C-alpha cells in the first residue's frame, strides 16, 4: 500500500510538471484551451496526490501530518486545492503558471525527506491534535497563496509604475484581482489559523506541556497571526493602498515558511515529530 502511495505521489508530481508545461505553453501561445488543459491536468495531479495521502494515512494508520514528507505533501494538496477552487469557481484565472512550480518544489522537498510510515506516537493520539493539524493545514494553504499573490501584486505594481507595459504585464491577472486575492485568501486563512492556535494551546495546557508558549514555532505563529490581523484591519478600515497589504502578506509568508522550513526541523522544542 505504501508503495502505491509513493507511486501515486510521483504521478502527481509528473502531472503537476505537465500542467506547468501546458501553462507555459499557454503563456507563450495565448491559446485559451491550453490553460483549460493545464487545469484539467493539475486537477488530475491533485486527485493523484489525494490518493497518495489517503493510502499513506491508511498504511500509517493516522492522518498524514507526521514528518516533513507527509506534511509537505498535505500542504501541497491544500495549496493546489485552493488554486483549483479559485480557477474553477471565481474570476481569478491563470495563476497556475505560478502555483505549479511551488507545488512541484514542495513535493520535491517532501520526497527528499521521505520517511517510512510509522505509527503515531502516543503524544499525538488525541482528537484535539487532529483538529489542530487539519485547521492549521487549511490555514497554511490559504496563507501561502495570499503570499504568492502578494508577490505577483508587487511585481505588477512595479511594472505599471515604471511603464513596463510589455508582454509580462498583459499576462498577469489585473492588479485589482491580485489585491482581492491577497485579501480574500487571508480572510479565509486567518480564522483557521486562530482556531488551530487555540486548539494547540488547549492541548498544551491540558497535557501540561512545559514552556510551550516559548516554543519557537508558537512564537512565530503568534507573529504571523499579528501580521495577518494587521493586514485585515488595514483593509477593513480602508485608506491603505494595496502595496502595504501586499508587503504584510509577504511578511506573513516569510514567517510561515520559516515555521515550516526552519522552526519545524531545527528549532522547535516539541513540534518536531520526525523532521
Amino acid at each position, binding site marked *: 500500500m505504501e508503495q502505491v502511495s509513493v507511486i501515486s505521489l510521483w504521478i502527481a508530481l509528473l502531472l503537476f510538471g505537465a500542467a506547468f508545461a501546458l501553462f507555459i505553453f499557454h503563456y507563450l*501561445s*495565448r*491559446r*485559451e484551451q491550453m490553460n483549460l488543459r493545464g487545469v484539467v491536468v493539475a486537477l488530475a495531479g491533485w486527485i493523484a496526490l489525494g490518493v497518495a495521502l489517503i493510502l499513506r494515512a491508511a498504511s500509517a494508520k493516522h492522518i498524514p501530518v507526521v514528518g516533513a514528507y507527509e506534511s509537505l505533501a498535505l500542504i501541497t494538496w491544500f495549496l493546489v486545492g485552493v488554486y483549483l477552487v479559485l480557477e474553477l469557481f471565481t*474570476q481569478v484565472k491563470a495563476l497556475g503558471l505560478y502555483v505549479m512550480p511551488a507545488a512541484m518544489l514542495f513535493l520535491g522537498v517532501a520526497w527528499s525527506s521521505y520517511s517510512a510510515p510509522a505509527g503515531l506516537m502516543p503524544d499525538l493520539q488525541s482528537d484535539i491534535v487532529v483538529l489542530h493539524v487539519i485547521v492549521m493545514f487549511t490555514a497554511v494553504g490559504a496563507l501561502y497563496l495570499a503570499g504568492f499573490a502578494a508577490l505577483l501584486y508587487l511585481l*505588477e505594481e512595479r511594472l*505599471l*509604475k515604471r*511603464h513596463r*507595459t*510589455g*508582454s509580462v*504585464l*498583459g499576462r*498577469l*491577472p*489585473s*492588479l*485589482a*484581482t491580485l489585491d482581492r486575492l491577497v485579501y480574500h485568501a487571508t480572510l479565509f486563512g486567518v480564522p483557521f489559523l486562530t482556531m488551530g492556535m487555540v486548539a494547540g494551546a488547549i492541548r498544551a495546557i491540558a497535557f501540561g506541556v512545559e514552556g510551550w508558549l516559548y516554543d519557537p514555532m508558537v512564537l512565530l505563529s503568534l507573529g504571523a497571526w499579528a501580521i495577518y490581523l494587521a493586514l485585515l484591519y488595514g*483593509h477593513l478600515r*480602508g*485608506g*491603505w*493602498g*494595496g*502595496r*502595504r497589504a501586499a508587503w504584510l502578506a509577504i511578511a506573513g509568508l516569510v514567517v510561515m515558511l520559516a515555521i515550516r522550513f526552519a522552526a519545524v526541523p531545527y528549532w522547535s522544542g516539541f513540534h518536531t515529530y520526525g523532521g
Partner: protein
Amino acid sequence: MLVVVVGVSHATAALELRERLALDGGAALGVARALLAPGGVCEAVALSTCNRTELYMYARDASAARQAALELLAERAGVSPASLAPSTYSHAGEGAIEHLFRVVASLDSMVIGEYQIVAQIREAYETAREGGCTSVVFNRLFRHTLEVGKRVRTETAIGEKPVSVSSAAVDLAEQVFGHLEDTTALIVGAGETGELTATHLRARGVRDLLVTNRTLAAAQEMARRVGGRAVPFEDLEGHLVAADIVISSTSAPHCVVTRERVHRARRRRRGRPLFFIDIAVPRDVDPAIADLDGVFLYDIDDLEHVVARNRAEREKEAVRAEAIVVEELANVDAWLRALEVVPTIATLREAVERIRTSELERLGGRLSGLDDEQRAQVELLTSSIVNKILHLPTVTMKDVAGRDECYLYVDAVRTLFGLDGNGDGRAGARGEAHGAGEAGGARPGTAAAETAAGSEAGAAGGTAEEAGARRPAPGAGGDAGLAVP
C-alpha cells in the same frame, strides 16, 4: 469551376473611388444577383467595407467572370472598365480563396488584427445567402472562412494588444481594475482623444462617466455625446475621490491636477487605486503624483510607446496567422477537388463494391453449401444488381459533368452515399470544426439533392429553370449551410 475574386481595396484605390464603389446591404445583393448568369457565375457574394469592395464568384470561366465583375464595378463607379482596371485586383482558384482567408484574418486590413472584418464578411455572406446567391460551394467556403477568422484570433495574439492611443489607455485601465463595471471615470477637458477614450470606456462598461470642463456648457455638450454626466470643474478634488480613472486633455498651460490635490483625494479614497491618463500637451497632471502608493500615471508619450510596440507585436503575430491561412487552404482545396465528377464516380463505385463484397463475406457460412458454379452465379447476380443500380446515377453525372450545376449533383451524391465519411475530402477538416462541418455538411447536401432533382425535372421538360435549380431555397439550403457552432 473555380472561385474568382475581383475587388478594390485601400491598397489599390483611393478613398474617393472606394466611396463610389461602397455597397450597402441592398446594393450588395443587387450586384451579386446581377453577376449570376447562366453558363458563367453560379454563386456570388459582394463584400463591401470602408476599406474594400470585393466580388466573390464561383464560375466556370475565370476571365469571363472577371470581365463581368469589372464591368459591373465600372458602371457603379461611373467610369469605363479600362480605366477602373488598374485600381482593381483579381485572383482565381486557390489564389482567390487565399485572398479571402487573408482578408478575414485581417492580414489585408489597414490595421492588422482588426476584428470588424469578420462581422463584415459574415454580413456580406448572410445577405447573399438570404438573397439566394450562394449554394453548396460558397455556403461551405464562407462558413469555413469565418472559422478561419475565429481561429486566427484565438490562436494568435494578432488582435490582442490595442494599436490606438485611446484603446491602449482603456487596456491599461483594465490591467489595473480588471473589469471596468465597478469603476467611475472622469474626463477633464474636451479634447478629441479624451472623448474617444471616454467612448471606449463606455463600451467596456464603465459604471459612471463624469465629464468636467472649465466651461460647463462644453462639459454638458460632451457628456451628452458620450453618455456621461457633466460635473462642475470647481470641485475637481471631490471628483478625484469618486473617480478611479481620470483622463485629462485640457488645453491649460499648466498642471490642472497637482500632487497636493491627488494626495488629499487619495486619503479619502480608502486605498482604491487611481489611474491617470494624461493626453494633454502640455501635461495636465503633475508627474510627481506617480510615486504615491496606488496612483498610476501615463502620459501621451507612454501611450504612443505602447502603441508602437503593440504594432510591432501584431506584425510578428501576422506571420503565425499566415501559417494558419496556408493550413486552412489545404483543407478547402481538398474539399473543392472532391467536387469533381470523375473521382466521385470512382469513389461511389468503390464504396458500393465494398458493401457488396462485405455482405457476401458475411454470408460466407450460409453459402458454403453451394458448389463453385452456384457461387459464381451469386457473384454475378450481386454484381449485376449493383451495376444496374449505379448505372443511371453514373450516366446522369457524366451527363451533367459539362454543366454549371454539376457540382450540386456531386455534392448530393457524396452526401447521400456518405462518400466523405471516412478519410478523404472534408473528413480531413481539422478537429474543432469537424463536428460543425459534418452537421452542416449533411444538410446542405440534402437541399442540393432536392434542387438537383428539380433541375433534372426542369431539363426533362425542356425548360431548364437554371436559377431555381442552382440555388437552394433560402430556408432550406441556407440555414443548414451556415452551421455556426
